């Protein structure tokens, strides 16, 4: 028979509607979250890309070869080369060492270069150009430099052999960053002028960065092509690789979004499971009639599978369509808040949604449908709801066990497929099942308790408890499902709070926003005296010594033998070594001990990620070349560092005294309030040779990014919450027929509407209480697991949250049930009874 025809007949009867809606919801949840996640993730990449002025950056010490640029053009990617080097700037009154950056007219590919005409003056628009990048013959200056040299718009200065006119000062250089720890202030010129300066010669130290932007697929192709033929000293960076503080934010947000998406899927699955269970139950008599009329078992279940197959495809397609509409709505809300235009979503979430829908349908429905084939035709002669023979436990188990097992396996499959960490997803699922089982048991215990004390309960309460006790299996199932739903919501709520708290904490309002670099040893005393005179706390000065890593465990470092580009990048540059007597408060010791007692070995403390990348551990022996002097020691401890604290931090810290009398400069960071600019000016005036770096703009960027992610997290959380409410509705719907019939009988026997309402409220309160309690207990455990293991956050036990959570859950159950069941009270008994024959 025609599957479409079968589907139409079943659909017309309303048999499939609930299952269809539940499936649509499941697919819509997956695809909405998928679409939003896709777009937000893409926006995050763009947001992060503005910190590197491109999606990807090829770093090299050579100017990009023409064939490299041609290859980019062929792939349809935009490219923007830039060169950075140190040089002397010859101003009208004096010469200053500067860091020159030569940029193309299309700089920056991502983010915005902001320029003002004079120090502290109004921003200059780009005169209709796409970018405010300097035109040939123009130069842009760091504000501090302009102030120091007393240069303003139109003034002239020389770099090498070329002369430039000052076009303005740089307010915000998107990829200015911290990473380079520029010693000299920035000067920006056009790339075309580079040759005219005559400063680029063989042997000059120039760092080239080729920023690239375009579609993700093209970028990936280009990256793969280039990766294979990188010359020594070359590497490709993305925003996430190059900026540890941004990377950790993006990773955490991604984990949470995936977790929320998984939660929505699980919740919608529970709704679907309820709906399909009801559908199969309603199909049981139909199957018996068909068997009686001579249909084979295979035909009975093939027929149902065909109808459900049509349902799956239709509901899946509609679900994806709903997802697309919902996400468009979300994007509209998000658009003004995110300063990056949200990119269009890809196709992947649609396919994922369809796949999840079909997997869920197959996993949940097939065992039930198979059991329809096993229905005894004899059923038609007996108007009863049981199989022939005693409805003993064994028989029920035989029928339900495969359904339950298949449901569990399906959920595990979906969870594992949809998660970046399959093991954790599987554990999460199993933990949820544990909580569900616990809630099922608790509901049974509560029912037993209720029955025992029934005599002391008011009339409608007694009826409510008895009504629950009449279908203990269903009550357990529902309590279990409710518990899982509440659990997911509570865990998401708890983790969300932890996550938002940690993000807000990561960039405190008084985070250092200025770095002072290049303080000489003989200046430190004068500097601290100056601070005392200014009535400011002394700087926490960190020594800085440039060194090159030359040997590991006695073996000289051979760059040619290092395969991993990131490892090579680390080895191929000068390190900033520092020494410290005391352990830095924003570091965490993860192995070894901080400066063991004198005499013991070990004079180095490494950042853990750094040590891992270079395959170093406790006891590894490193040899450094410090300005021609060799220093060798072993690793005594490993630390983790919070890069997003904006405090000076170092990959390698050495024991004080180990570096002998090596020439060190010092650096410090401090917070400068906006109204306090005078202090910065006095500092620079008093110590002209130090460099002041304003990191405020960069902190603002990271903060904007954080706000953007917090918003995304809230939205995804709201979606999961919606799915949770729908689970409740589906659970209530599942017993709708029975309630309608019972309600009609009771009304016929003279029960008032109020009595019926109380009865049902009692039922759901008992369920809600059992589910809420177990969910709260599970949520604490789960949020601890998720926070500490998945997101690596500090976990705080807050006894109020689970209490409030479970109470909230109870109210949620009660209110939803009351609203959903209201029509039952209004039903006309005669009609309801006739409906069931």
């Amino acid at each position, binding site marked *: *028979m025609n599957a479409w025809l079968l589907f139409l*007949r*079943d659909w*017309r*009867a*309303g*048999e499939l509607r609930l299952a269809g809606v539940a499936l649509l919801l499941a697919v819509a949840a997956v695809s909405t979250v998928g679409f939003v996640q896709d777009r937000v993730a893409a926006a995050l990449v763009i947001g992060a890309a503005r910190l590197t002025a491109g999606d990807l950056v090829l770093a090299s010490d050579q100017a990009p070869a023409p064939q490299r640029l041609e290859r980019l053009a062929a792939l349809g990617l935009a490219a923007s080369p830039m060169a950075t080097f140190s040089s002397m700037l010859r101003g009208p009154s004096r010469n200053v060492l500067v860091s020159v950056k030569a940029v193309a007219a299309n700089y920056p590919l991502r983010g915005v270069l902001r320029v003002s005409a004079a120090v502290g003056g109004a921003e200059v628009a780009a005169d209709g150009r796409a970018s405010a990048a300097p035109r040939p013959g123009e130069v842009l200056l760091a504000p501090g430099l302009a102030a120091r040299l007393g240069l303003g718009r139109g003034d002239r200065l020389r770099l090498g052999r070329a002369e430039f006119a000052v076009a303005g000062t740089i307010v915000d250089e998107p990829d200015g960053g911290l990473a380079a720890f520029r010693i000299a202030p920035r000067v920006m010129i056009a790339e075309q002028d580079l040759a005219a300066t005559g400063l680029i010669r063989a042997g000059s130290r120039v760092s080239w960065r080729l920023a690239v932007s375009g579609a993700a697929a093209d970028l990936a192709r280009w990256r793969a092509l280039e990766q294979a033929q990188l010359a020594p000293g070359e590497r490709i960076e993305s925003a996430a690789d190059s900026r540890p503080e941004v990377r950790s934010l993006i990773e955490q947000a991604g984990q949470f979004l995936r977790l929320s998406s998984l939660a929505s899927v699980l919740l919608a699955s529970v709704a679907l499971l309820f709906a399909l269970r009801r559908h199969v139950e309603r199909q049981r*008599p*139909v199957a018996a*009639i*068909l*068997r*009686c*009329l*001579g*249909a*084979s*078992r*295979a*035909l009975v279940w093939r027929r149902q599978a065909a109808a459900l197959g049509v349902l799956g495809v239709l509901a899946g397609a509609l679900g994806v369509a709903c997802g697309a509409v919902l996400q468009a709505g979300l994007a509209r809300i998000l658009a003004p808040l995110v300063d990056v235009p949200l990119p269009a979503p890809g196709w992947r979430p649609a396919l994922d949604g369809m796949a999840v829908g079909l997997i869920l349908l197959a996993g949940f429905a097939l065992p039930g449908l198979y059991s329809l084939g096993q229905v*005894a*035709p*004899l059923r*038609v*002669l*007996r*108007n009863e709801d049981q199989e*022939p023979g*005693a409805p003993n436990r064994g028989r029920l188990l035989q029928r339900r066990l495969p359904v339950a097992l298949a449901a569990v396996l399906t959920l595990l499959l979906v969870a594992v497929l949809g998660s970046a960490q399959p093991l954790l997803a599987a554990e999460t699922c199993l933990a949820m099942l544990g909580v569900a089982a616990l809630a099922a048991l608790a509901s049974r215990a509560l029912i037993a308790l209720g029955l025992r004390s029934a005599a002391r309960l008011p009339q409608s309460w007694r009826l409510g408890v008895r009504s629950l006790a009449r279908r203990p299996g269903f009550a357990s199932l529902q309590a279990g499902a409710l518990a899982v739903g509440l659990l997911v919501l509570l865990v998401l709520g708890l983790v969300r709070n932890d996550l938002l708290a940690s993000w807000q904490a990561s960039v405190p309002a008084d985070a250092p926003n200025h770095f002072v670099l290049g303080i000489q040893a003989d200046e430190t005393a004068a500097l601290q005296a100056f601070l005392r005179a200014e009535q400011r706390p002394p700087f926490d000065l960190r020594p800085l010594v440039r060194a090159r890593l030359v040997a590991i465990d006695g073996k000289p470092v051979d760059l040619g033998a290092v395969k991993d580009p990131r490892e090579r990048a680390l080895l191929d540059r000068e390190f900033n070594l520092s020494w410290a007597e005391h352990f830095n408060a924003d570091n965490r010791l993860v192995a070894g001990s901080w400066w063991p007692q004198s005499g013991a070995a070990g004079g180095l403390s490494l950042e853990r990620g750094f040590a891992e990348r270079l395959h170093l551990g406790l006891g590894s022996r490193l040899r450094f070349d410090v300005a021609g002097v060799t220093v060798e020691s072993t690793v005594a401890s490993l630390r983790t560092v919070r890069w997003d604290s904006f405090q000076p931090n170092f990959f390698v810290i050495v024991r004080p005294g180990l570096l002998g009398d090596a020439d060190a400069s010092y650096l410090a960071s401090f917070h400068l309030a906006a109204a306090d600019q005078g202090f910065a000016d006095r500092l620079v005036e008093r110590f002209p040779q130090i460099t002041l770096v304003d990191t405020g703009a960069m902190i603002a960027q990271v903060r904007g990014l954080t706000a953007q992610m917090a918003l995304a997290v809230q939205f995804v959380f709201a979606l999961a919450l919606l799915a949770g409410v729908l689970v409740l509705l589906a659970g209530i719907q599942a017993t709708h027929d029975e309630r309608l019939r019972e309600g009609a009988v009771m009304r016929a026997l003279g029960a008032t509407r109020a009595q019926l309402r109380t009865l049902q409220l009692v039922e759901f309160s008992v369920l809600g209480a059992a589910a809420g309690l177990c969910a709260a207990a599970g949520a604490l455990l789960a949020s601890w697991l998720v926070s500490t293991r998945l997101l690596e956050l500090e976990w705080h036990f807050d006894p109020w949250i689970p209490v409030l959570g479970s109470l909230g859950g109870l109210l949620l159950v009660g209110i939803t049930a009351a609203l959903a069941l209201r029509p039952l009270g209004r039903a006309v008994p005669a009609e309801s009874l006739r*409906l069931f*024959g």
Partner: protein
Amino acid sequence: MLPAGPLVILEGLDCSVSAGESLAILGASGSGKSTLLALLAGLDVPTLGEVWLAGEPLSSLDEDGRAALRARVAGFVFQSFHLLPAYTALENVMLPLELQGAPDARRRAQAALDEVGLGERGDQRPRTLSGGEQQRVALARALVTRPRILFADEPTGNLDTRTGERIMALMFDLNARHGTTLVLVTHDPSLATRCARELRL
């Protein structure tokens, strides 16, 4: 509480029904009438003994084999009609033909509905039909495949006397016209007397 020991419902029963014959199975509630019908139609299997249907020993067939045999030779009418609520009257009658894969199901079902006098109401759902009309649809469904044997389980049990009589008249008429064997379970002696043979349990 169930009594201890095995519960014997039917024992020492030996009877045969020839083609074209009509047999009424009579007995009080709980005497095993419906169980006997179920055994005869292959809806259930006896603990001991053998049932032959249309020349085939049912014990030699599995569930699906018995279903296939039912599809070939048997028609059913039930006390509570058992029409599929989701299907229209016509679709309900088409169902057995569709299960057999008959190509002209719609035409033959329409003809069967015409025969029971409901030709005009084929697009109605069971819910909107009266009890007598529902049973006529069930009768059309039972006879649409031209079965050699019609099993009827208290076909008038849920109907008032007059409607019941009309249904029975229709059934006996069709039985006579198509030469169908009729096995009827009833507790109504007046109905039983219209059958060629009576079996009291």
